[in-house]
């Protein structure tokens, strides 16, 4: 029996797959098990196959694997879609009375549990609870104490009243009892141990939203787009508790301009979108940078170009983030590598934005956005959050940054490139900001010398930050290994787990996971020390590999995945082995 256990519920979009999956995932997490979820979904609301998959173990897990031990199949297609992940002994729970499931054939060697989900749900109070009956059945299969499900059900249905919660509890027990009565225990030899730990379970979008609030973000404007919408959903109703506000704008152009306005008022503000929205925001991005406005712009990447595959994974926007926008624009680009890092990098993004009065791209991806993962709560230790607001002047200190005519200098030429900042309302600070090239006062200029000085000043902020801040990559594996594997974004988890597979095969590697895209760490030494370098990313052309080759003047090998599916640990291990020996 494997140490980790994989199960899924699948059906048609609209079947309540997501919420049912989440109820069980939460129950596992509360029972002290680690959980890592993934979703198969299509870009439509009703109809179309969709599944919620959960990998769970008492040990830490950070990736998905190609294996399913228990599958709750609400449609025949659910079985077809997952055939290659099912194995001998896999259990398939289905409702043979459902019209579409009557002719279902359970593949050789697998165990089919035909449970009248709808009928039992009706007995408990309503057909709508049939998915919960299935969860009860899954508890029977896995020896998972059904009491753990109860608190999850309460969390999900609590605001609908105690009666609904009780009915659901009853429904779950009906599923459990049915399986215990009708099937032999020997066929169902899975055991889900519980522990005393209490984990939190959340996804990358939620972690970004939480990070924003922790960092004192007060203003969010956005326009719905998969897979960034959950950031807005998370903030809505929560940020208000901390004195903030969320606006659903009419489009991305408005979203970034609203956020820019709020930032100029002095609020920490943010917008989040995905590729197509980034394209629309690009013109204003230049204004944000030129007017030296602190702003966090989050790009939760999905598969492009154009509308591409909106519900699929890709890391294809890197070039746009690095180079997007006309003219030359200083920027920071942070790319969290895990769900927990989504939180911390968001906090950092706000600090960098204000310290350097520069737009910061915070780039996550679909895999991080839809993946829910368990953590020890102190992975989000709020006491460790630090706020750096940079060079803000008040009524007393403003005099140091004025001309003899008492005009404030918002673009003062300083050694570190960072100018004073006066929030509107500050006496003596009135000034104009513009996207036109300007002098120290913010006034339009085409003076050749001032142009050069202002461009250099803005660039100097990046140079200052490069020296002042820590841009180190995250390191895993054996630091003395000859083989170096480099990655960015969500691939870290799969890569870290791949290390164990590689070790079994006697392949020794050093892994660097880079959360800073610009400025980024200088990896020249690491590249030189390595025999072979492989760069892993979810795009076709190797955009990060290109910049690293450019930085280090060293050719690297590449592993690129761009079929819309994230890397899996076992698959990645095989890829790395093959690439290294090629």
């Amino acid at each position, binding site marked *: 029996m494997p140490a980790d256990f994989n199960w899924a519920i699948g059906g048609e979009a609209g079947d309540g797959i997501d919420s049912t999956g989440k109820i069980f995932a939460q129950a596992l*997490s509360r029972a002290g098990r680690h959980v890592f979820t993934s979703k198969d979904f299509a870009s439509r609301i009703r109809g179309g196959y969709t599944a919620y998959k959960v990998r769970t173990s008492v040990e830490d897990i950070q990736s998905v694997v190609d294996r399913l031990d228990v599958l709750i199949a609400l449609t025949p297609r659910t079985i077809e879609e997952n055939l290659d992940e099912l194995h001998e002994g896999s259990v398939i729970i289905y409702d043979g009375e459902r019209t579409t499931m009557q002719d279902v054939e359970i593949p050789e060697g697998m165990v089919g549990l035909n449970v009248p989900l709808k009928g039992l749900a009706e007995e408990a109070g309503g057909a709508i609870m049939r998915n919960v009956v299935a969860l009860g059945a899954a508890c029977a299969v896995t020896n998972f104490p059904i009491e753990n499900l109860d608190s999850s059900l309460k969390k999900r249905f609590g605001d609908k009243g105690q009666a609904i919660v009780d009915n659901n509890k009853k429904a779950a027990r009906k599923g459990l009892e049915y399986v215990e009565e009708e099937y032999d225990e020997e066929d169902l030899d899975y055991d889900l141990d519980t522990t005393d730990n*209490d984990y*939190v379970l*959340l996804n990358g979008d939620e972690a970004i939203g*939480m990070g924003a*609030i*922790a960092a*004192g973000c*007060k*203003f969010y*404007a956005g326009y719905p787009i998969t897979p960034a919408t959950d950031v807005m959903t998370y903030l809505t109703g*929560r940020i*208000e*508790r*901390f*004195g903030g*506000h969320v*606006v659903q*704008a*009419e*489009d991305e*152009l*408005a*979203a970034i*301009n*609203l*956020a*820019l*306005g*709020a930032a*100029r*008022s*002095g*609020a*920490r*503000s943010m917008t989040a979108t995905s590729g197509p929205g980034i394209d629309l925001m690009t*013109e*204003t991005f*230049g*204004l944000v940078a030129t*007017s030296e406005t602190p702003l966090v712009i989050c790009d939760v990447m999905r598969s492009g170009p154009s509308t591409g595959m909106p519900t699929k994974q890709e890391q294809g926007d890197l070039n746009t983030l690095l180079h997007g926008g006309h003219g030359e624009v200083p920027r920071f680009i942070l790319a969290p590598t895990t769900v927990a890092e989504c939180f911390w990098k968001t906090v950092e993004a706000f600090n960098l934005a204000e310290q350097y009065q520069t737009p910061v791209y915070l780039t996550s991806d679909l895999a991080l956005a839809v993946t829910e993962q368990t953590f020890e*709560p102190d992975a*989000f230790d*709020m006491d460790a*959050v*630090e*706020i750096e607001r940079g060079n803000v002047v008040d009524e007393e200190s403003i005099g140091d940054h004025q001309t003899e*005519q008492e005009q404030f200098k918002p673009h003062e030429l300083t050694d570190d490139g960072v100018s004073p900042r006066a*929030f*509107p*309302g500050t006496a*003596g*600070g*009135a000034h*104009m*900001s*513009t*996207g*036109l090239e300007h002098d120290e006062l913010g*006034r339009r200029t085409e003076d050749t010398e001032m142009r050069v000085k202002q461009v250099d000043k803005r660039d100097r902020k990046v140079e200052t930050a490069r020296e002042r801040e820590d841009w180190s990559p995250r390191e895993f594996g054996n630091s003395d290994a000859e083989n170096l594997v480099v990655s960015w974004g969500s691939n870290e988890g799969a890569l870290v787990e791949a290390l164990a597979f590689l070790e079994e095969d006697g392949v020794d590697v050093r892994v660097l996971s880079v959360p800073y895209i610009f400025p980024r760490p200088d990896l020249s030494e690491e590249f030189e020390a390595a025999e072979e370098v492989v760069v892993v990313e979810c795009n076709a052309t190797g955009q990060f590999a290109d910049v690293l080759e450019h930085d280090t003047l060293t050719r690297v090998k590449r592993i690129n995945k761009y079929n819309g599916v994230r890397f899996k640990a076992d698959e990645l291990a095989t890829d790395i082995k093959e690439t290294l020996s090629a």
Partner: protein
Amino acid sequence: MSSQVRFTDFKSDKQPTWCPGCGDFGTMNGMMKALAETGNDPDNTFVVAGIGCSGKIGTYMHSYAIHGVHGRALPVGAGVKMANPELEVMVAGGDGDGYSIGAGHFVHAVRRNVDMSYVVMDNRIYGLTKGQASPTSREDFETATTPEGPKQPPVNPLALALASGATFIAQSFSSDALRHQEIVQKAIEHDGFGFVNVFSPCVTFNDVDTYDYFRDSLVDLADEDYDPHDREAAKDRVLDAEKEYMGVLYQDEDSVSYESQHGLDSPMHEIDDGAPEGAMDLVREFY
């Protein structure tokens, strides 16, 4: 703020580069006087300007200000005001800026009803790009890019505003200094989105919609027995194809600004040193 504030305090020491005689001079003077008259000073005022000759206004005025990208001034203004409701926010731009590239934002700014004023310098032409047709140009107005006229009806900004649910709609004329100032003042005082379309002639590129034309054709609602709170009357006036009006065409006395509706009453720039109090609850929600 203090009564010592004079309208010239809102003037920057930059000399406008507008063509002599441009309507924007009068428009700007009226705005500055209205701001001073309503008790504001440069340090509590935020002016957001669009792109165009009209958009240069931010440079010639003295206040906190931003000169944005073409067509996007309204969302910037809304963001400024939401994040600090204590500021007096005024957005200004041209007819091309507001009704062409920014038309979508116009409709939504009207709906949003943030408490700010929006002054559009309508010269029925693109000035800064040297004389192309604008969305308010007449159907037969000949320009280099429309040699036979645009051959499409002009946008009717007042009707668009009314249809979008505006709570304050006014029209003024830059050379009628007193009326213009008075109308902008009413827009500032309005609790919600105060929209003023100002005829601000372009003496260089528009020889049809001239000072003389507006002086002769504009009907001042102040000279009539007109009730601006009557939406039906407003509908008749804004859809009147024969005449153009000056004055407040519509004002909803019951207007409640966006900020009031959403309980935004204090500046958002103050934040805690670390995570805000109670933030750990956010983590506990995920148990």
